[in-house]
């Protein structure tokens, strides 16, 4: 198992290096002069020359890359042009909100998606299967920003069950060890804070989860249908095992492999969807930070976000591989 983890970690290094190169090239070579952007539209030629020298932009490109690389490796991502805080501070402030939203959506999508897919597979070709699969098709085709606005209209405007936007009600704070308001409320026994944070989380989490629920349901159904036709399942039934034992113990375990892979891939989709969801519900997470930073041409911030997102993505893929190894001994001993 350790062998597998080490091997995958080593494989991640060239990918992360490639991402670093891509980000460097993207922000330093492509159109748009960085010094001009920092100086603003009214900067004089002398000011721009000064900024160019300060940032080392007048040095050869390989020197610039080396400086950049050595800074990134030490966790120095520079200072935001907009907030004037270190980029790492801004990222750490925004990250918990995105993590909370993504985790909530992921848990919701996994539970509902796997359950719906299993039900559809077990009762395949019934009206229930058709109904569930039609819903899945709609879920896959719904743009996340429309889902969000519709939910907002229905459950925050027409039926005021949930707050319209934000993470917490104005003036409320939920201090705690994790920075995730819902989790902190729960851990510190701050029930008012927990309830408030949770009610703010429901609509965004459902919005973000919709597509993934549909996708996971579809994959689970396909995997289960395949497994349910195998000979060992017929044997299990023939020897008189109860229906639920056959489905959960024999079928689900074997159908889990493709489903886990899909879940891993879906986490990337969730990160993308978080940008839109956070924009709709005014959540101050990484997604909103991305949009604001791009609109302000805040290059150091954009670079930090991209690196963090790529790192998260690589880690999630690693986790998926490890889980895969846990589920399938053949992969572990390859």
């Amino acid at each position, binding site marked *: 198992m350790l062998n597998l983890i080490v091997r995958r970690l080593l494989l991640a290094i*060239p*990918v*992360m290096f*490639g*991402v670093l*190169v*891509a*980000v460097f090239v*993207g*922000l330093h070579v*492509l*159109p*748009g002069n960085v010094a001009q952007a920092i100086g603003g539209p009214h900067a004089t030629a002398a000011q721009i020359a000064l900024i160019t020298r300060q940032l080392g932009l007048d040095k050869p490109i390989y020197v610039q890359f080396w400086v950049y690389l050595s800074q990134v490796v030490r966790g120095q991502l520079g200072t935001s042009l907009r907030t004037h805080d270190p980029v790492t501070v801004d990222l750490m402030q925004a990250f918990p909100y995105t993590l909370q939203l993504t985790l909530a959506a992921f848990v919701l999508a996994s539970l509902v998606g796997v359950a719906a897919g299993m039900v559809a597979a077990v009762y*395949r*070709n019934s009206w229930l299967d058709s109904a569930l699969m039609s819903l899945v*098709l*709609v879920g*896959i*085709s*719904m*743009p*996340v*920003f*429309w889902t969000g*606005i*519709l939910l*907002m*209209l229905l459950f925050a*405007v*027409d039926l005021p069950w949930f707050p319209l936007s934000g993470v917490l009600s104005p003036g409320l704070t939920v201090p705690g060890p994790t920075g995730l308001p819902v989790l902190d409320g729960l851990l510190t026994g701050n029930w008012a804070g927990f309830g408030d944070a949770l009610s703010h989380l429901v609509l965004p989490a459902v919005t973000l989860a919709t597509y993934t629920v549909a996708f996971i349901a579809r994959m689970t159904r396909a995997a289960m*249908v395949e497994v349910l036709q195998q000979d060992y399942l017929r044997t299990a039934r023939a020897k008189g095992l109860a229906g639920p034992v056959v489905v959960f113990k024999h079928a689900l375990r074997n159908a889990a492999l493709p489903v886990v892979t899909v879940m891993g891939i879906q986490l*990337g*989709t969730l*990160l*993308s*969807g978080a*940008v*839109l969801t956070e*924009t*709709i519900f005014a959540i101050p997470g990484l997604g909103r930070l*991305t*949009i604001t930073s*791009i*609109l302000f*041409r805040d290059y150091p911030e*954009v670079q930090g*976000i*991209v690196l963090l*997102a*790529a790192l998260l*993505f*690589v880690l999630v893929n690693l986790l998926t591989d490890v889980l895969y190894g846990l589920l399938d001994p053949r992969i572990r001993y390859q």
Partner: protein
Amino acid sequence: MVEPEPAVEVSEPVAAERPRFWRHLLRNRGAAASLGLLAVFVLVAAGAQWIAPYNPNAQNLLAALQPPSALHLLGTDEYGRDVLSRLLFGARTALLAAVAVVAVSMVAGAVWGLASAYYGGWVDTLLMRVVDVFMAFPFLLLALMIVAALGSGVVQAVIAVAISYMPVYARLVRGVALGLKELDFVQAARSLGAPGGWIMRRHLVPNLVGPIIVQATLNMGTAIIDISGLSFLGMGVQPPQSDWGAMLADAQTYILQAEWLVLAPGLAILLVVLAFNLFGDGLRDALDPRVERH
């Protein structure tokens, strides 16, 4: 010099399968219905200027935010523009942008994947590592980064989304081509001395058409969602051009005063994407003789 034709003519599975393909496709009710819906979508996009009751950009501030009426079937927006007319012209924006995205990413990805599969060795390794790096980014972030570098606008958005789709085609084409490379008829052509380019054109490309068309059809749907998503964020189609994503962004701003603005553009996106997804699934089943409906 004329390229040498191999002496043995190898069968072309694609052409022989045509009647079966159409029978399968049109027997699938979902695919047949979605084909009709897509035809309507294309007609509306092409003939928007004749169907639309008003100029989509004509402002009338005295008639701003009016609910649906006989005069304005879907109401008016914050500038008093006719929502129906903007919706119809938005179909054109969506169709053109999606076609551009799919065409660019498909051609670039196919060339990339074919080169990777055909040359193998270090070329393959290098090209596929680049694809891995592209795929290491969450899709929207990659598109946003490209927009950040190129600036906002529909052309930039198309390039951004196309670049982020390209790896999918590169991997797909490489995978299929690697499998095909080992098949008897390609080996036969090669052993008869057929040149590389000829084998690619004559044997690999025809066999790749099926999987690529399926992927392209499904991507038409995702491209419409992604381009309108960028426009929703203010980084795609710029005002005053009609766009479904930008219409939804406006609708959210006026959600408390004008609820009707939320419905039409979202429903339009949903229906068109649904149709592309259904049609793509139908195509996949019709092109794959092994698929049996469970």
